[in-house]
């Protein structure tokens, strides 16, 4: 196959789309891990619940005859609120009582929560695939490049970038951000100097769930279908991305997600999609062999 720049760009942008969505989910994993060292397996389900909430809101508002940009905005806001509420509640019910228990107990509790939420949506909603309307409008100015990149992809890139910038800003410059950093460094010490640790953990879950919900709304609108199971695979992939980038590190989660998205996309495009997952995970193993704590992960120094 001769070198084809257009084809390369298309694969690059397809990988960027996937990577951006992984990043929105991976942020939640990595923030929670950074603060309480818990792998929140229920996080993928929060993403799925965000997509379902948006679908329900969209259905109602479409009946009322609103235009699609307004619907997208309101659906996203409601999804963010709902998912955040779920994230907050899950933490209070399933993780807080286990905070001083062995880490394995909290992990099992997280897996249990994931299965519970999946089955809850399966029973309360449906096991079928549901069509999700394309809410993101087609931009007129994009038409000349439409064969390469679609407007929904542009919206995904821009939203992901904005979310990331806001998040970095929040952690670097706000009081709650400072408190988060303090808790992640030393929980006991933070408590001693007057940081409300419970509140910080709750905020972390709320913020992580909100970004996952945004990812859910965007990808559902881009792909056009959802079911109760979408959170599982997306969650696993995002988790892998977070580990690849260095779990606990926010830039790491984003970088890991993009690397994973591009790996999958280029491998599919230039070699074969049959072994897409095999290759993605092989790549993970390689990265972890050479950088055991991920691309941007902190190497734990021995405390003397």
């Amino acid at each position, binding site marked *: 196959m001769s070198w*084809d720049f257009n084809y390369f760009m298309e694969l690059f942008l397809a990988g960027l789309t996937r990577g951006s*969505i992984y990043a929105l989910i991976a942020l939640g994993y990595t923030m929670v891990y950074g603060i309480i060292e818990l792998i929140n397996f229920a996080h993928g389900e929060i993403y799925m619940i965000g997509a379902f909430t948006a679908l329900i809101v969209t259905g109602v508002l479409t009946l009322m005859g609103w235009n699609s940009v307004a619907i997208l905005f309101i659906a996203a806001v409601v999804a963010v609120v709902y998912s955040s509420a779920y994230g907050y509640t899950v933490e209070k019910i399933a993780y807080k009582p286990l905070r001083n228990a062995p880490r394995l107990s909290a992990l099992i509790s997280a897996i249990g929560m994931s299965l519970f939420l999946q089955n809850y949506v399966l029973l309360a909603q449906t096991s079928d*695939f549901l069509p999700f309307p394309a809410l993101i409008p087609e931009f007129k100015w994009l038409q000349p490049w439409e064969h390469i990149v679609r407007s929904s992809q542009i919206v995904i890139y821009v939203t992901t970038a904005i979310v990331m910038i806001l998040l970095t800003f929040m952690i670097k410059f706000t009081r709650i951000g400072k408190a988060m950093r303090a808790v992640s460094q030393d929980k006991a010490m933070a408590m001693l100097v007057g940081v409300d640790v419970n509140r910080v953990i709750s905020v972390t879950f709320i913020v992580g769930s909100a970004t996952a919900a945004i990812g859910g709304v965007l990808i559902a609108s881009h*792909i*056009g279908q959802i079911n109760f199971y979408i959170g599982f695979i997306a969650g696993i992939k995002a988790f892998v991305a977070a580990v690849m980038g260095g779990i606990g590190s926010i830039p790491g989660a984003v970088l890991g997600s993009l690397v994973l998205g591009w790996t999958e996309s280029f491998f*599919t*495009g230039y070699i074969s*999609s049959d072994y897409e997952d095999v290759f993605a995970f092989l790549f993970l193993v390689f990265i972890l062999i050479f950088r055991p704590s991920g691309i941007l992960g902190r190497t734990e120094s021995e405390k003397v």
Partner: protein
Amino acid sequence: MDMRKTFTVAIVGLFLVLSLVGIGTAADTIKLGVAGPHSGDLASYGIPTVRAAEIIVKKVNAKGGVMGKQVELLVEDDVCKPEIATNTATKLASEGADVVLGHICSGATKAALGIYKGANKIAMSPSATNPALTQSGDYPNFYRTIASDDAQAQLEVDFALNNLKAKKIAVLHDKGDYGKGLAEFAKSFLEKDPRAEVVLFEGVTPGAMDYSAVVQKIKQSGADAVIFGGYHPEASKIVSQMRKKKMKTAFVSDDGVKDDTFIKVAGQYAEGVYATGPKDLSSNAMYNEAVEEHRKAYGEDPGAFYPQAYAATLALLNAIEKAGSTDYDALRKALQTNDVDTPLGKIRFDAKGDATGVGFSVYQVKNGKYVEVK
């Protein structure tokens, strides 16, 4: 000791004589063997066939039978196991079955066919779909009233080549048994045909978040048509992404996609998609009548392979009537030269033993509905 041995020999001898007598008197009836699983966990596949045979034989006998003789059923259980099927076949052959309706499972059918072949008996299965049973040419005594596993792939390939005039075809699958098997058949048929080339053969990961990279690859390959083996969730994602990219590539798929959920989920993007699916029998008067007879006789709706078994029984009895004997060669000729009306439509058999005109049709999505392509 000697006394006892002599006694045993005498008993065996007596049985042999009696069984010879049995065969002697049997010449007055036509014996239709029915073999399949009638007990065990796969019984639900075999029992509808027995019932179809019972219903037809009762009707035929009431009208004076075949060639003036009454038809007698010899029902034998093979529990779908190849090692038991050989015993079942031996028993049916030695009991003097003229023709056999069965077996049901492909593995058991294959094991039994060698024995029927040695005994010059015709066997007709309503359900064994393994392609090799007819295509290998090993069993000229075998016929079936169900389409083989590769029939859908054959139909998709024929449709893409003859109706769509595709020159470059991308074959995709979902890596599952069903989808990949179908895609591999389609690929092998395409490779034998000089009119088109396979420009892409790929498996996609089921449940993946999006397929834009694969869709780019289809576009890059320059395919005029995609043949997809798999189910509707992946198909609807791939089709939607293709259409959103303004690709007009034809999309041909299978029974797993010929599902209303596909249309519901893919919405406007489903329009124009082709999918093969079982022929719609509900407009066939004979089919409706056969179902009604079953309801009347057994008080419930018929189970798996009932229409195929009904058709096979009719075809076998019709062949005996037309041939005027139960001679092997005469029966083969009769099966291949006579059309017979069945609940599956008008069928006859090709030289390999497959029924023509059974199985699948091509459907296309038009205005949100699957419509048969004539």
